[in-house]
């Protein structure tokens, strides 16, 4: 068990090493600057380069400006770390099923990794001894249903489906009914990827949510927004608009194993106060991890 955690930490650190290098490389370079203002300016730029965004970066640097008088790199590092940690700590909240069936609705724009995240999540819950039911609510994208079914086979859980082009609301209805009668512990509902700006598609999502809530009061218990770590400032728009329309209760940040820095979750956590549940740091099912602010910041800086 302890070994597992250690291995997990190592892979997370490896995944974030590049981010770390990108930021700290710049922090170290920042000390070649002559004046203190130059150092701070360079620091701000290095934060911008990690997708933290202009507004949040200058807020963080302004905070440092007040606390930091000298040019001690270790001190600067410490302050930067605690500054970002404070923001992320508030958003740290793992996803724990509290009801039965616990209904999770995954949503997000196209290609962020919803179906894969669902597969990994199903694998986790199954290995914890919970019975999991999946619902193939993405009836739009070609072969999305089959993709989820293959995950179901792999993980060993049942998948509620209808034909391609079917009504996602009807599948949600069936799935919730099935989860109740089969006494499933967890129901994870896949939805078609949609841009947050497509009003009619967001309306469809609202309808799915309404149906789930009507069939099982209190559900969906989690509206999990899946975000791609390589996304830039648009992720903030995604979070904002989906949150306004659906009420996002948690975020999963995927694809953190590349060179993408995922810095966008800093302003999302700071501004929208949505809990960050999970991070994806690799292809295998065990690479979906609970978000841990300390671990994230330590790997980052």
């Amino acid at each position, binding site marked *: 068990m302890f070994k597992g955690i250690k291995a997990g930490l190592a892979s997370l650190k490896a995944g974030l090493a*590049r981010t770390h290098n990108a930021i700290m490389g710049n922090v170290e370079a920042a000390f070649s600057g002559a004046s203190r203002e130059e150092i701070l300016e360079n620091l701000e*730029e290095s934060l*911008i*380069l*990690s*997708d933290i*965004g*202009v507004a949040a970066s200058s807020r963080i640097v302004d905070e440092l400006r007040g606390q930091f008088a000298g040019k001690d790199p270790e001190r600067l590092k410490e302050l930067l770390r605690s500054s970002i940690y404070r923001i992320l700590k508030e958003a740290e909240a793992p996803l724990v099923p509290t009801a039965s069936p616990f209904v999770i609705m995954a949503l997000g*724009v*196209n*290609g*962020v*990794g919803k179906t894969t995240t669902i*597969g990994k999540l199903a694998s986790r819950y199954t290995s914890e001894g919970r019975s999991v039911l999946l619902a193939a609510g993405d009836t*739009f*994208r*070609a*072969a*999305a249903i*089959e*993709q989820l079914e*293959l*995950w179901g086979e792999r993980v060993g859980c049942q998948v509620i489906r209808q034909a*391609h082009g079917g009504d996602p609301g009807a599948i949600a209805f069936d799935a919730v009914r099935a989860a109740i009668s089969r006494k499933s512990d967890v129901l994870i509902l896949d939805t078609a990827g949609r*841009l*947050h*700006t497509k*009003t009619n598609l967001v309306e469809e999502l609202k309808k799915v949510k309404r149906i789930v809530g009507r069939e099982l009061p209190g559900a969906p218990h989690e509206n999990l927004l899946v975000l*791609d770590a*390589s*996304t*830039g*400032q*648009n*992720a903030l*728009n995604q979070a904002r608009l989906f949150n306004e329309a659906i009420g996002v209760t948690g975020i999963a940040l995927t*694809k953190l*194993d*590349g*060179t*993408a*820095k995922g*810095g*966008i979750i800093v302003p999302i956590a700071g501004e929208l106060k949505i809990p960050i549940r999970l991070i994806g740091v690799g292809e295998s099912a065990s690479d979906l991890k609970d978000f841990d602010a300390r671990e994230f910041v330590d790997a980052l800086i």
Partner: protein
Amino acid sequence: MLEGLSDKFRKVLKDVRGHGALSDSNIQDALKEVRLALLEADVNLVVVKDFIAAVKEKALGKEVLGSLTPGQQFTKVVHDELTRLLGGSEATLELKGRPPVIMLVGLQGSGKTTTAAKLAVHLKGRGRNPYIVPADMFRLAAVLQLKKLASEARVDCFDSEGYSKADAVCAEALRIAGIKGYDCVIVDTAGRLHIDDALMDELKTLKGILKPSEVLFVADSMTGQDAVNTAKGFDSAVGVTGVALTKFDGDARGGAALSMRMTTGKPIKFVGVGEKIDALEVFHPSRLAGRILDMGDVLTLIEKAEATLGEKEAKELQRKIKKDSFTLEDFKGQLQQIKKMGSIESILSMVPGFNAVKNAKDVKIDEKEILRVEAIINSMTMKERVDPSCLNASRRQRIAKGSGTKVSDVNKLMNQYQDMRKMMKMMRNSGGRGMKGLLNRMR
């Protein structure tokens, strides 16, 4: 699309406009705003710095031409520089070899599979006979996804089911393409990270087998600062020939496009603009620059209309507008054409000034309105459609009943129709500067 940027620039330029002449100080503020706007649009920081330096140099060095205000002058400099940065003129597909091969590469979830199908539709529309090859053996159901898309697009697709290795798929597909005489082959590959050496090596092997004339890097237009690294990584590993930018129909400001173009020097060739299988457009740098500055994208609109309308119908329509014989029957035909062209909103977003209008008033275009109008026209006799002046009260009542609408709806349509004819008269007389009036009427 890039309307966030357009809005920012317009605000910035408004400030410059009031100052009389371009000076070091007033341009400084404007440049700062431009920098901020570009960074918020996810343009890479390094690229932003280069851009700002170039704009500054050009703006200060330039004489203000006769009739231009300093604001207009600055707009022109920014526009020219943006166009230059985006690649100057549009880049075409290089289709060489027997058969020519287009290979799609990129990160997971960037949209390679969808783009493969859209590209096939695009090439088919230009008289080609494409062959789709699904070589993503990794992601679950990726092969099936592309097979389904191919059959939707009515394009032949290699059956990769049963294969486990992408190199075997590519070799066999290429052999079959040679025998069956397809004149272009589109190969979808598995999404991978540019830092995954093993998978990048596989890509190199595939490239060795396929000898593609095009290696398109498929990139998500919402990508952040990292776009530079991924584009560079793929380019240095497999030698990218161009970029296809996806998911451009959202509200991403698309700064990644500028970044990738600047750092790799490779042209952006296509943009994906919707969920439908024909929602792929050729990328036009100058038009995009114009769009960033909210000068509209009338050229794309015209091209789109031409592609869906057909030359003959377009000419016929022109003749009718000229002769003032535009009937309700023609109007109905128009509505059907518009529906073929895509959502009203996507069409209107190409009209100059529309972005500002949309944001200011939060206009929601009601697609159902079109259905209603169609129903009304369908409930008319042919005589009424050709000569609507015969529509008296009882006829209007009958039409309203037949179409399930109210008489007031029928009246509204008739007013719109009359307005439209007036507009056409205006356009005939003024040679096309009637867009604003049209917009006002629509509001």
